[in-house]
């Protein structure tokens, strides 16, 4: 049985399909364009479906944490609730407010949506299952995710609404502050992996005790600080002050409706999956694992981290703005930098492999 499962590598399907395409005898430019197009459409489809699944899962987790059932009516345990929601949002009226800044208001959700997808160019979903193994992998992901901050600022400004403006400003302040500990935690891993490429990082942790979370003592510390910073980067509770419902009604997306709102909403869940996938790649060995095919291991680990972040959201109270900033600068930044220095020293002295 394990042997059968092992052979279910998704990459083989892609190789087979590419082989068929190459045999058609088209000019190489066309082969390239068609394969890129297919990969792009596939990524979009898979991620959109994944986001819909995560929305449903979040509602179920929230329900069970609060001792209720969550969506139950549409299908088995409400499985097509979010699909119905998405269709509803598609045909909803796009309310166009008069006071908005037309140009900024229109492009903010587009930029947010595109930025959420860009990171997936170099996330390894399985062994060899990566769109492009850039040699600046993790740095590229950090760079493109900054566009999300710009998009939220644009949404806040373009809405011409004080709550939206507050939401946008809070999100920018939070993202800039938490990016520092996040990058410092990631650097701890990079020191030992010796490369920025996501594939190299996974390959440098090829056994369970080689996973960066198992490397004592800096690994677990870096993992915990990364998870905290990632929760803040994904704008989720307890760090969800950019859209704190009780304070800001809905924050930066208050004036958005219909499809534009759906784009923000889906982007948020794709970002949740992104930060979890990075955590798995950097600390939990990525696609590595016995018996099961590599893409399934990656998916299971990532969904595990997603579940952890969902439990955070529904079991912790929200922080105040000043507490949030204080926590980032007075606690997380010193801790991550001390950890980074510790890891670098241990590497330099050769106390660790």
């Amino acid at each position, binding site marked *: 049985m394990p042997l059968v499962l092992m052979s279910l590598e998704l990459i083989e399907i892609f190789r087979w399909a590419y082989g068929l395409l190459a045999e058609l005898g088209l000019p190489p430019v066309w082969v390239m364009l068609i394969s890129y197009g297919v990969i792009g459409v596939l990524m979009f489809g898979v991620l959109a479906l994944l986001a819909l699944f995560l929305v449903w899962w979040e509602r179920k987790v929230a329900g069970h944490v609060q001792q209720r059932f969550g969506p139950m009516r549409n299908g088995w345990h409400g499985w097509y609730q979010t699909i119905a929601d998405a269709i509803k949002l598609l045909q909803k009226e796009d309310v166009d407010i008069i006071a908005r800044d037309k140009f900024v208001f229109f492009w903010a959700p587009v930029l947010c949506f595109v930025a959420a997808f860009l990171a997936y160019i170099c996330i390894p979903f399985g062994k060899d299952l990566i769109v492009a193994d850039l040699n600046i992998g993790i740095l590229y992901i950090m760079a493109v995710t900054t566009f999300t901050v710009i998009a939220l600022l644009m949404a806040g400004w373009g809405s011409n609404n004080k709550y939206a403006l507050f939401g*946008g400003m809070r999100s920018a302040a939070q993202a800039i502050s938490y990016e520092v500990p996040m990058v410092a935690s990631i650097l701890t891993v990079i020191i030992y992996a010796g490369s920025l490429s996501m594939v190299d990082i996974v390959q440098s942790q090829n056994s369970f005790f080689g996973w960066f979370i198992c490397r004592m003592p800096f690994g677990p510390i870096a993992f915990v600080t990364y998870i905290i910073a990632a929760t803040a980067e994904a704008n989720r509770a307890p760090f969800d002050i950019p859209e704190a419902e009780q304070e800001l009604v809905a924050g930066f997306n208050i004036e958005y409706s219909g499809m534009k709102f759906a784009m923000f909403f889906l982007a948020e869940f794709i970002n949740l999956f992104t930060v979890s996938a990075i955590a798995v790649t950097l600390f939990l060995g990525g696609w590595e694992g016995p018996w099961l095919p590599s893409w399934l291991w990656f998916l299971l680990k990532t969904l595990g981290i997603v579940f952890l972040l969902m439990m955070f959201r529904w079991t912790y109270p929200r922080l105040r703005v000043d507490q949030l900033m204080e926590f980032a600068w007075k606690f997380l930044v010193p801790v991550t930098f001390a950890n980074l220095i510790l890891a670098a020293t241990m590497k330099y002295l050769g106390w660790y492999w």
Partner: protein
Amino acid sequence: MTDPSEVGIVFWVLSTVILVSAVMVVSLRNIFHCAIFLILTLTGVAGIFVTLNAEFLAAAQVLIYVGAVATLMVFGIMLTSDIASRRIEMTNQKAGVAVLACMVFALGVLFLIKITTKAGAGVWQTATEPLPADNVLTIGKQLMTEFVLPFEVVSVLLLAAMIGAIVLARREAS
């Protein structure tokens, strides 16, 4: 990005984006729109770096200019009260000086292009062999060995600027 014709198309598209949005930055009346086009300009420059096989520079460009500098600018605009509805006037009347400055800059660039493209002269050393695939490693090593002094000076400069900003902010508060 090895095929020269491919690089050519990408170069022209990126240059058009950069130049058009750079003109927008200085000619639009709404300051927030200017900031957005500045971000577009800087992203275009990152794209040019990618076509030159300088991925690390491209990522650093986006991280520092878009992620930090432009975000802080937008942040500053948002914190400035009563700027949303105002259309900013072009207050600079010194057209003559501006034209002169532009001319000097254009001549300087032209001069540089001329001396670097002179056949076989090699006034400025350009790479004759293909770049190493992993140039991040090389950049890192160079920064920590040969260019460690400028690197440290820049850090001290940034630290000084940061302390200065804090001092200014505190004085205002008291």
